[in-house]
Every structure is written in C-alpha cells, then in structure tokens.
C-alpha cells in the first residue's frame, strides 16, 4: 500500500450497531497509530480514516454514519471492493505512562494506539468518552481492559460526564506525564487547555480533522490559518507547540470549495 490507489476486498464487517461498523481488509500496510488512509467508495467519494487496528493479517477502519459517505459505507459487505491508499500524515508516539483520551468515534485510532502500547509493554490509561452507550464500538473488549475508564454524557454507560472532566481527578491520583487525544475539536482544545494549566505544561499529542482532497500536502484544503500547517502532512497528530499561532480554532472549517460556512 502506498499513496497510489489500490482496491482491496472487504474481508470482514463487525457491526457494533447499525450506524457504527468496523471493516477489515487483508493486511497491506505498516502504519503508526493515528496515521490515516484515504478510503474510496467507488461511485460515491473518498474520505480519510485513521486505522482502528493493525493485526497480523488484517487492517481495520471503524466508521460511524454521520454524513452521506459514511451512511453509504454502512452498506459495504464482505467481498466488496474498496480503494485504499496511505498511510498518510503523522502518528501518535507511544510513551510509558501515556494517558489516552477519546471522544466518540475519535476513540477508534486510540484503540490502535492502545494496541501498540500493550505490545511495547508500556503502562497507559485510557479515558473513553461517548455521548451515549450506543456510540461505543468494541464495548466488551474495552470494558474488560483494566486501563479503560468509560464515561458517557447521558450516563448510559460508565460514569456520567465528559472525558475531559475526568482528567483532573486522574492527575490527583497519579500525575499525568503525557496526553494523547482524539475526538471533536472542542475536546482537543480543552485537553490542550488542561495541559497548559501545569508548569511545565503536560506534553500533548492531539489528532485533528479537516476536509481534504489530496492527502499529500498539495491541495491546501487542510491548511490551518495562522501557520499554514497541513493536517495531512504535518498532522493529523500535532503537538501543543504546533498549535501556537493557529488562528482558526473558533471558526467553521473550510469545506470542499475552500470556503468557510458563514461565521
């Protein structure tokens, strides 16, 4: 697998619920956790997805139906051909003592990061935040992992609350030395804000999302205002340092035309 398009047959589909599924392909890739692949659904579109798992013989993406592309993806069956290229961008760097924090479908790439941490025998903790129990993929697997703390906004699974709100008490328990986060942007910025309340601040690795066309640093769609950093090349995983100078956090993201929806 490379930046060139290659089609692969879907090997297995794992249905978490009708709008949340994982898709496995024959293993074709060496990738860091947090790196992404472009996924082409012929006749529909092509979108970036971070890998949720890399196994001996298979790779996996986890898709939640949120728009036209991901909704159509729910119809993909074993044996269907799907185009894949990548991996692209930067990944998370596994570190001893790392605290993972995920929001919703953002937990998918953290599952692969957790897998890497376990394989490297590194100690970690993982705060899994979801809106409601239905949003949790791999529920049985995650509930049985001693490293995981599951929280939901409606209290339908785990403690009621938001993932970020758990960080302070976790830190009281055992000081957090490094954070890896993936999820909605307000959550990422809240994690960054939390890390910055310490002196020196806690190092963070944050995974961002932007609309993109090329994934190879060319089209400019995913460039951040203020610094011009490309989410597809210098990201998607950025350090706190790389967030300095970015001026677009409070603005709607650029769409396919390059225009931001009216602020």
């Amino acid at each position, binding site marked *: 697998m490379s*930046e*060139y*398009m290659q*089609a692969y*047959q879907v090997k297995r589909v794992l249905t978490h619920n009708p709008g949340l599924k994982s898709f496995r392909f024959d293993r074709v890739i060496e990738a860091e956790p947090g790196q992404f692949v*472009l996924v*082409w659904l*012929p*006749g*529909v*579109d*092509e*979108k970036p997805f971070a890998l949720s798992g890399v196994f001996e013989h298979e790779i996996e993406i986890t898709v939640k139906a949120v728009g036209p592309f991901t909704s159509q993806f729910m119809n993909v069956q074993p044996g269907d*051909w799907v*185009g894949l290229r990548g991996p692209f961008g930067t990944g998370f760097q596994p570190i001893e003592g790392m605290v993972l924090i995920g929001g919703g479908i953002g937990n998918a790439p953290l599952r692969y990061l957790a897998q890497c941490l376990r394989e490297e025998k590194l100690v970690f903790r993982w705060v899994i935040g979801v809106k409601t129990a239905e949003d949790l993929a791999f529920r049985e697997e995650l509930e049985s992992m001693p490293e995981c703390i599951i929280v939901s906004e409606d209290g339908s699974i785990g403690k009621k609350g938001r993932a970020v709100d758990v960080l302070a008490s976790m830190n009281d328990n055992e000081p957090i030395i490094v954070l890896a986060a993936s999820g909605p942007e307000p959550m990422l910025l809240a994690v960054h804000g939390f890390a910055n309340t310490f002196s020196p601040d806690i190092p963070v690795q944050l995974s961002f999302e932007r609309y993109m*066309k*090329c994934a*190879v*640093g*060319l*089209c*400019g*769609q995913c*460039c*951040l*205002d*203020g*610094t*011009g*950093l*490309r989410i597809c090349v210098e990201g998607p995983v950025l350090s706190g340092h790389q967030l300095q100078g970015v*001026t677009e956090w409070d603005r709607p993201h*650029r*769409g*396919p*035309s*390059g*225009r*931001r929806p009216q602020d």
Partner: protein
Amino acid sequence: MINRLHVNLAGIELASPLVLASGVMGLSASSLERVAELGAGAVTAKSCGLEERKGHPCPAILPFGFGLLNAVGLANPGVDDMIAELRTFRLQSDVPVIASIFGKTVDEFAEVAARIAEAQPAMVEVNVSCPNVAAEFGRSFASDPALVGEITRRVRGRVSDIPISLKLSLQCMSIAEVAKACADNGADVITAINSVGPGMIIDPNVRRPVLANRMGGLSGPAILPLAVRAVWEIAEAVSLPIIGTGGVETAEDVVQMVLAGATAVGVGTAVYTRGLEVFSNINSDLHVFMQERGITSLSDLKGAAHV
C-alpha cells in the same frame, strides 16, 4: 552579495525565479505565506471564479508514479473570499502574489478580473485552460486563439496597470498561435503550460475510472518535456516573458526552462514529489549551478538554447 537568482518578470522583481503554480497550497493567505517563506519568488493563489464552487467529488487528485492526475474541477471559495485572502497575504508578506481567475464566459472573465484587481495582486493570471470541466464549460477556451485574444483584451481593460498573464494549454492546434493572440491583445506574460491531457486511470478490480470526474489533467515530471517544448515554441513566436510551468522538480529543470525561453518557472506538483523544501532546495542548487559556471544572471541563459 549578488543574488544570481533575481529576475524581473514584466516589471515585478522576484528574489527567485520559482513561482508557486496555481492550485497548490493556494487557498489561504497562511498557506501562501508558508510557501513564500520557504523560498518561492512569487506565489500564485488558487483559481477563483465569481461564485463559490465545490468542484468534483474525490478522488480528485491521484498520484500514479510519474506525477499526478487531477480533476479538482475549479473548486474555489469565490472571488469575494479570495480578495480577503489576498489582502491578508499582502499585509503579511512582501513576496509578490499572483491572483488566478477563470470564467464561464468572456464577460465573466472580465468581471472576475475587475473584482480581483481590488486586492491589488502583483499580477493577474487568467486560467483559460482548465481541462477538467468540459461537461460544464464546453471545450477549453485555450484551444481557440481568437477567443483567448478576446478574453485577454477584455481582462486587460479591467485591471488598470496590473500585469496580466494568460495560462495556456497544449490542447490546441498551435500554442504559438494562441500566445500570439495574447500578445496582440495586451498580455504582459504567458504562463505555460497547464496540466496535460486529460488522462484516465481505471482500477482493474473496481472496473471504473478512479477519478470521480473519470478523467483529469496530467502534471509532474512526465510532462516536463512537453512543457519545455511549449515554452520553446512560445519564445519563438512572441517576445513576452514566460512563466515556464510543468514538471519542474530540480535546478536543472529550471535551467532547461530558462534555456527554452522562460523568465520565471512554475513549481506545483513537485510540492508533492519533493516536499515543500523543493523551493529552498532548487534555489540553493541553482545558485551553485550558476556560480560554478560563472553565470551571474538568469537573463544570460534566457532563450540561449535557440541557435
């Protein structure tokens, strides 16, 4: 120390002959500024039209081993947003910025030109040669010398003293004839060439063309010889300065373009094949190339292959 790389392009002073080509890192002031800081002599913004366009779905940009096939479909935020980005860029950078425009009709070209001139770009590049919107725009304007001449004349009349460049395509009977039409109607510069083709890549398992638009323009190292030949032919036909564009990745490629007759040289797809460092890398390699041969100015090389 003399800057051997300095060039004068239609009155615009460039610290390097390298011009970021349109369509690459060109949507925002911040991305253009980043390229400017990395050593581009000038930067070209993404082509914009009167209205916002979403362009084609993806895959729209496809690496294939010898360059890229792309069919972005003139996606752009519309001229109003682009004016704002250009103004922001000009507040932050002294590097000349070139606006790029397109229209569906001759009138629309003139109208977008008049609007974009409000942002006071160093130059307005007129993209008459996008190959990827055939279904909607009909045959590319660039194949018809009379039509390109008409667009040139109309745009020229709407941008006061801002230099204009016509971005031409090889999809025509004679690019030299099209260039003459530009020169006769008030063009200051020619940019050549746009992506070539269109071409198509079909996935053998999916059994469909991979690009959502089915076909798209070819760019990158595969088209360098075509671009060099086009620059050569244009240089034989007109005396206008040329931004030689197409497949340039190295200092030697730049020298080829200049020897064929280019004054400045566009760099686009190389941002993918060589990374953003391509600008500083070419600059330093070109400096060494010239120093070793005792060449103090690129103008000494311009068109020198024509004997």
